[in-house]
């Protein structure tokens, strides 16, 4: 068990564009850290640098207190689960799991005990004599995890380990990996492009885009206090509504985008007065919009008329995909509703939950916490 520290880590491939640009993070001992971001943002590259599979172009990487930049993967005391599992096709499940121990000259008994224990933990004891070819995707995934556990490493690295599983198995395995984490009490670093996985599994999440860290925080903080427009749009499903407009003055400050006009609270006025007549992006999550007139119990001063284009009843909730002028808004209603396509609905916004971003930089504008 160990913490992992990255200081000013950069990765340049041949083309001299930074695949990872100044990555700084301290991953605490026993933490479950998730790297999330769209495909190509440098998550795998970061993970592979931690594993030692990719050279670090500049910067420092510590595992525990030890600088490991120039230490080979096998001597870093890490284990990795690959997206395609990377099981050795010519070995049985047992041999796959035992291989790393054999190379490290563990005794036969020790190897046996460890493999059997891990197999029992992962419920694959019955498969030990099979070759990977004869396993289902879910079973292979478990073997890949088993191969990592038997070594009892200081740090586990996962690179999209669930993306080849079907939806149901993915949800199930997600929970199992979380359980495994609390059971093994080891530092885990987990890469995914799926924000749901990130939200549900991570103690903390690193959101990346184009090689740059966008924000590092706990899932709930990312959700409630996104630092910028990208994080706001990336975390949460359906995504936060983001509408570009302007701050205007007219008996107080308003946010105006086409026909949509929202009066700001006093606190927001203070915060946003310096942005008068500037381009601003307004953000609100679908669940912070309520049908006007219903008993929603929020202080909600802004109302807007919306045209419903699509209704998606999910049983316990209903999504409305609506438009107002040129902008579209997703609304999540907690109850069933009789609203139909092409209806006009009036909604109110929970102004305590709205976000503002500078349109040009994308940075969030909010009071210093």
């Amino acid at each position, binding site marked *: 068990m160990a913490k992992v520290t990255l200081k000013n880590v950069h990765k340049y491939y041949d083309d001299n564009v930074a695949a990872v640009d100044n990555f700084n993070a301290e991953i605490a001992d026993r933490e479950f850290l998730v790297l999330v971001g769209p495909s190509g943002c440098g998550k795998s590259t970061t993970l592979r640098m931690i594993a030692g*599979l990719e050279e670090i172009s500049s910067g420092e990487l510590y595992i525990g207190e030890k600088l490991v930049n120039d230490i080979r993967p*096998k001597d870093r005391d*890490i284990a990795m689960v690959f997206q395609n*599992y990377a099981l050795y096709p010519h070995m049985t499940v047992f041999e796959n799991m035992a*291989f*790393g121990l054999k*190379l490290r000259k563990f005794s036969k008994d020790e190897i046996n005990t460890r493999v059997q224990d891990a197999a029992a933990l992962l419920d694959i004891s019955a498969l030990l004599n099979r070759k990977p070819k004869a396993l289902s995707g879910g079973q292979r995934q478990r073997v890949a995890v088993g191969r990592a556990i038997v070594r009892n490493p200081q740090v586990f690295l996962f690179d999209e380990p669930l993306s080849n599983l079907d939806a149901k198995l993915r949800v199930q395995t997600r929970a199992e990996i979380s359980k495994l984490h609390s059971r093994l009490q080891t530092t885990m670093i987990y890469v995914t492009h799926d924000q749901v996985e990130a939200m549900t599994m991570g103690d903390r999440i690193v959101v990346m885009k184009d090689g740059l860290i966008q924000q590092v925080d706990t899932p709930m903080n990312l959700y409630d206090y996104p630092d910028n427009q990208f994080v706001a749009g990336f975390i949460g499903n359906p995504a936060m509504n983001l509408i570009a407009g302007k701050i205007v003055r007219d008996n107080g400050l308003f946010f105006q985008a086409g026909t949509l006009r929202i009066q700001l609270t006093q606190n927001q006025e203070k915060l946003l007065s310096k942005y008068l007549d500037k381009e601003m992006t307004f953000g609100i999550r679908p669940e912070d919009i309520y049908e006007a007139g219903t008993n929603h119990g929020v202080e909600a001063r802004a109302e807007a008329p919306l045209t419903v284009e699509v209704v998606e009843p999910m049983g316990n909730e209903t999504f409305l995909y609506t438009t107002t002028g040129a902008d579209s808004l997703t609304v999540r209603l907690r109850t069933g509703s009789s609203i139909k396509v092409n209806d006009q609905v009036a909604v109110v916004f929970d102004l305590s939950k709205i976000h503002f971003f500078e349109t040009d930089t994308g940075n969030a504008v909010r009071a210093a916490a």
Partner: protein
Amino acid sequence: MKKLQQYSLLVFWTVLFIYPFLWMLSATLRPEREIKGFGIWPSEVSLYNYAQVFEKIPILRAFLNSIFVALVVTVAVVVFCSMIGYALSRLHFRGRDAIFYIVLFTMMIPFQIILIPLYILMVKFGWVNSYLALIVPWMVSALGIVLFRQYFQSIPKDLLEAARIDGCNEVQIIFRIIWPNSIPTLITVGILTFMTTWNEVLWPLIVIRDTHLMTMPQLVTIFAVGGQAENQLGVQLAAATLLALPVIVAYAFFQKYFIESMATTGLK
């Protein structure tokens, strides 16, 4: 009806192709005076021609020489070329592709061009008339390197990385991960090398003088062309049959892999 036509055509070609071999085989089994025309049924069968071969030349010794040389060369090619193929396909270092193109280029050079320099080298090393001259120059082959490189490129990167994390060094990766997953290619390169080495005549003729160091094709050629066979066709053909036999046996044995990997390496 169409099938019938196809099959008859196939049978026809097969017979056309195989007939000379059958004729040769039958010729070795009959007396000299009967070897004429196209018939293949001997009126009487005798092993006289074979007995003559064993009597006149040390063919058994040549057989063992050939086996020894071909085996050593084959093992060396498979080991070294797979290592080089691995480096050229899976390791990253400056000049890697340049090296590969040079290797490719050497395949275009006809053997006749390097024959004399190579011979001079052998003389300088004092290897003429020794196994070293038969073996060492052939321990690495461009074709072997190319075949291994091409195949290794198809092995998933993850597999090698998993092995690296598990604790393999590069040599262990080659022999414990790559090899077990490249069996058809190993066999193809093995067979190709074995056959080429086995059939080689020109080079042994140049570097070997001592009859006891001669390989089988060399000995048989000298026997057939030189005066020893006394122009007896049956005896010459018997020697040639003995020469072809091990190759045919080896081919029959590995045929499945051979065809499989010929198809997968794209070498048709």
